[in-house]
């Protein structure tokens, strides 16, 4: 009986394809998590800073529209601002991630 190696190659191809897909999937998942976390931190900073400069502006409308948030996969982004006499605290939630940014009012800021 003559043993061919084409079946072996196909089996290995499938095996390694599954392995590769798993690696790509896992890496993609980790990258997505880190991406969401970083983007959340950036969004919270931008929203908080905008509120610092434009305290009368409607928070939900700045600085990114809802449609742009939806496009970038941040449609569930929720933002809350607390204004104190010496600082403002912006809290953003993107899925499971919660980011908090504190920015000082100029009158009380120290560097």
């Amino acid at each position, binding site marked *: 009986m003559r043993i061919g190696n*084409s079946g*072996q190659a196909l089996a290995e191809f499938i095996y390694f394809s599954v392995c590769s897909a798993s690696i790509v999937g896992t*890496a993609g998942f980790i990258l997505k998590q880190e991406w969401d976390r970083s983007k959340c931190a*950036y969004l919270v900073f931008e929203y908080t800073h905008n509120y610092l400069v434009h305290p009368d502006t409607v928070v939900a409308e700045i600085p990114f529209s809802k449609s742009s948030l939806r496009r970038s996969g941040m449609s569930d982004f929720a933002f809350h601002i607390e204004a104190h006499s010496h600082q403002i605290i912006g809290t953003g939630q993107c899925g499971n991630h919660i980011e908090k940014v504190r920015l000082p009012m100029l*009158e009380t800021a120290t560097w």
Partner: protein
Amino acid sequence: MVSNTKGGLHVPLLLAVFLISVSGLRIWAFLRNWRFLVETQLRLDRCVGKVAQEFRDSLNSIEISNQRIKKLRIAIEMAQLEPGVIPPLQAVLIAQVTKQELIRAKWDFKRGYWLVSQGCGNSKDIAYPLPAFKFIRNPPDLVGPQALIWEEIMLEKFEFQVSHRPRYAAAIVEGGLDEKWKATWSAPHKLSWTNFH
């Protein structure tokens, strides 16, 4: 001919490495850009904030010194019957005047340095000139040196701004002669209606 199937195993792995690398580089580029934006914003905020606070403190110090000078001059005028107390009062008066002159000189130096260093020290920054102290002091009379007065009608607010595309930081110092000057963050100003002369 013997076909070699070993290379076939490497194709999916190479594809996986390629996809991960490209995705990683793209994400890294985005993260780097966000970091740059946040760092630039914080740097500009810090720079503008510090100079606005310094201007506020200088104005408040001059206002307080002015009040003291006026009171000292009244005290010296009223002390004519007791000439012994006049020299120490005049010494305090001169000390207050010297303090004001030092504050003015320091601010003038700061304005010059601000222009030379383009505000926050980065060549791509666009810094508006700092406002000038337009105080003048009338010549001393028999009582001694006089308080500072603003050359013309004093502005209600002074503006500070530095930009570094696409970011900017702006602040205003506002108040009045009767109350203390306060510094606050603000939206960007247009050069046409600012106090830069």
